[in-house]
């Protein structure tokens, strides 16, 4: 258990209005100016701005409130507590495992701090194809800058750990440019445990920045509470119905200790994250005249290559993901064959052991390579081609969301090229053996052997291992109502008192880790909302 100061527990002592779990039940009725669904990247930025404008804000979060005292760097506790579906959320065909936060702070509490502005090429595509004429690097620049200032997003000047330096060195040998990744940290201890919640509060997540700021201004936070359904009448939302949930996400039995909550607000901000935000609108039977809701949900599908080096790598130790290369994004047209970004993820026992393929002796040999193991990942930039239309959010019979995401031949072609690129870099960095994560692959000891083998591997769902930590789209921005679910200012095209402020608003994937894209775009639309509701002009920093 962390012995460091805990700003959340201190805030609770000061009288923050937080309910849920051990903090007691929420009231049955609540009235406020703005109800915000979620507490992640988009919700946090919105909450701070709206609360600073003097508005009465209520936030509704399905996950628990956990903080640095709870963050003990153990996967066995972090995954069930802090992640959607215990870190085992999957696409409908079980071909892609999705890591997505479910706790106060959302994915920002558990992400690896990688911070990139939305690439120019992505914004140009949005202007061209989705009528988002005011989405340019110039127009968004001030909003990114404010977010960077507020969250201390700066170049990471500490030397990369060996895990990341292998990417730098391997790429350099092949003449591939690689660069350092900016991070949202302040006084980072370089522990490497970001994915389990930062135990030192160095990570400038929503949990320790905007959410406390909003709570200090009197905002109210309902935790362990599912936003179940909007009540809709006459083109407006008239109420939000919420239900308390158990730690595993099951609805709690209502009784004296647990009651449903009805929230009536003047305006509603939906920021439950991609997958969950469209699911809430689907459950609410929100108007969707052009059948766009839940469609074009993107994942940056990730494939991985696992290498073993002579020297220790200790991929669990030190800041994660501090080096990247966009060489395989920048060297081809955005709407051509799918491009990919390469990064070096941290490894911890549970993630590593469940990712090591196979069983018996071959599994044991790979498991024992853990200290010398270096894995690269490729984020495939989906959503920029007719054969990359992403997935569709649907509802199960119990109202929970399911994502149908077909891995098309177009995506699979990129997956094969990405595996080849990563293996070549790993051999160039001096790998003794390289294993692309595919059920039919073997560890290969030379680049030639690896190249020949991977060139003929069947690239099929489930044989090729895919994961995702970036869920985007499903409530896309569009310059007219045929192109998107929400207007360029974040307001729903058909529901005038509903805005969507999270990663679900992106009409394609980002082509970079999305947290700063969410902070920047939401910062702008939340400032617009503040102005419309109060007449005040506020900036984030």
């Amino acid at each position: 258990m962390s012995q460091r100061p805990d700003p959340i527990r201190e805030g609770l002592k000061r009288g923050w209005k937080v309910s849920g779990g051990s903090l007691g039940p929420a009231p049955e009725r609540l009235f406020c100016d703005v109800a915000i669904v979620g507490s992640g990247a988009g919700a946090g930025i919105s909450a701070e701005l709206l609360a600073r404008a003097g508005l009465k804000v209520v936030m509704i979060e399905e996950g628990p409130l956990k903080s640095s005292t709870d963050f003990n760097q153990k996967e066995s506790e972090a995954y069930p507590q802090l992640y959607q579906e215990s870190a085992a959320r999957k696409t409908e065909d079980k071909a892609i495992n999705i890591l997505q936060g479910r706790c106060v702070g959302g994915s920002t509490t558990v992400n690896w701090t990688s911070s990139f502005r939305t690439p120019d090429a992505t914004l140009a595509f949005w202007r061209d194809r989705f009528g988002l004429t005011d989405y340019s690097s110039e127009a968004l620049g001030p909003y990114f800058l404010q977010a960077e200032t507020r969250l201390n997003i700066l170049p990471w000047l500490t030397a990369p750990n060996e895990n990341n330096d292998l990417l730098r060195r391997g790429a350099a040998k092949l003449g591939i440019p690689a660069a350092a990744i900016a991070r949202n940290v302040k006084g980072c201890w370089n522990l490497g445990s970001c994915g389990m919640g930062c135990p030192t509060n160095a990570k400038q997540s929503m949990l320790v920045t905007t959410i406390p700021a909003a709570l200090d201004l009197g905002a109210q936070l309902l935790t362990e509470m599912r936003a179940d359904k909007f009540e809709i009448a006459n083109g407006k939302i008239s109420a939000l119905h919420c239900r308390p949930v158990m730690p595993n996400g099951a609805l709690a039995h209502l009784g004296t200790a647990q009651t449903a909550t009805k929230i009536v607000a003047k305006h509603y901000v939906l920021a439950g994250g991609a997958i969950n935000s469209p699911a809430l609108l689907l459950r609410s039977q929100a108007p969707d005249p052009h059948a766009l809701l839940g469609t074009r949900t993107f994942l940056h599908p990730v494939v991985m290559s696992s290498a073993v080096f002579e020297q220790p790598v200790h991929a669990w130790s030190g800041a994660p993901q501090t080096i990247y290369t966009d060489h395989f994004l920048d060297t081809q047209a955005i709407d051509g064959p799918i491009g990919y970004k390469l990064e070096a993820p941290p490894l911890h026992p549970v993630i590593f052991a469940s990712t090591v393929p196979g069983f018996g002796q071959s599994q044991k040999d790979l498991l024992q390579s853990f200290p010398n193991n270096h894995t690269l990942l490729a984020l495939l930039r989906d959503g920029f081609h007719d054969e990359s239309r992403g997935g569709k959010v649907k509802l199960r019979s119990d109202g929970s969301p399911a994502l149908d995401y077909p891995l098309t031949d177009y995506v699979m072609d990129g997956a094969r090229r990405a595996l080849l690129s990563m293996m070549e870099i790993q051999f160039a960095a001096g790998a003794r053996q390289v294993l692309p994560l595919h059920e039919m692959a073997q560890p290969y000891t030379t680049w030639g052997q690896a190249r020949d083998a991977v060139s003929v591997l069947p690239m099929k769902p489930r044989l090729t291992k895919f994961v995702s930590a970036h869920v985007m789209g499903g409530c896309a921005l569009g310059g007219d109502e045929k192109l998107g679910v929400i207007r360029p200012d974040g307001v729903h095209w058909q529901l005038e008192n509903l805005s969507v402020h999270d990663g679900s608003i992106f009409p394609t994937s980002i082509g970079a880790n999305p947290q700063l894209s969410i902070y920047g775009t939401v910062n702008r639309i939340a400032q617009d909302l503040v102005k419309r509701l109060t007449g005040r002009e506020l900036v984030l920093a």
Partner: protein
Amino acid sequence: MKRRSLLRLGVASAVVLAVAGGTAALLQSGLNQGRLGPAGREVFRAVGRAILDASLPTDPAARGVALDGLLDRVDDLAAALPPHAQDELSQLLSVLASVPGRRVMAGLSEGWALASEISIQQALQGMRLSRLALRQQAYAALHDITAAAYFSDESTWVQLGYPGAPAI
């Protein structure tokens, strides 16, 4: 098991159920109230023996203790899953624990408790590379849950050469 959730099992398991000659009443639930039932424990104990064969202690008593620990951790892991995932896991374990389900879905002729590690590994390999999505999905669930649960406990980390998280 509810009829509605049975329908979600899909064609392959419908075949399994038809072979089973029967109705849901003949199958034991894999999970009861989100915890491993006897059927679930039997399957995971056998799958654990096979998947972790080389990683488990060789001494029979120590091996038994390690497998007990695995089952406790699988139990915790299952309890933390949301209801729809618990339903699916329960159905999977239920089908695998039935004789026809074990034969058709896993391709294993002997009972789980008596089958050798090698026989179970061969069955797992058949599922892993099967053309049927349902068998591949079953393999992935058994593999990932077993490996994640076993190596979530610090008693196993010495085998990984992992020193544990730094003290702060």
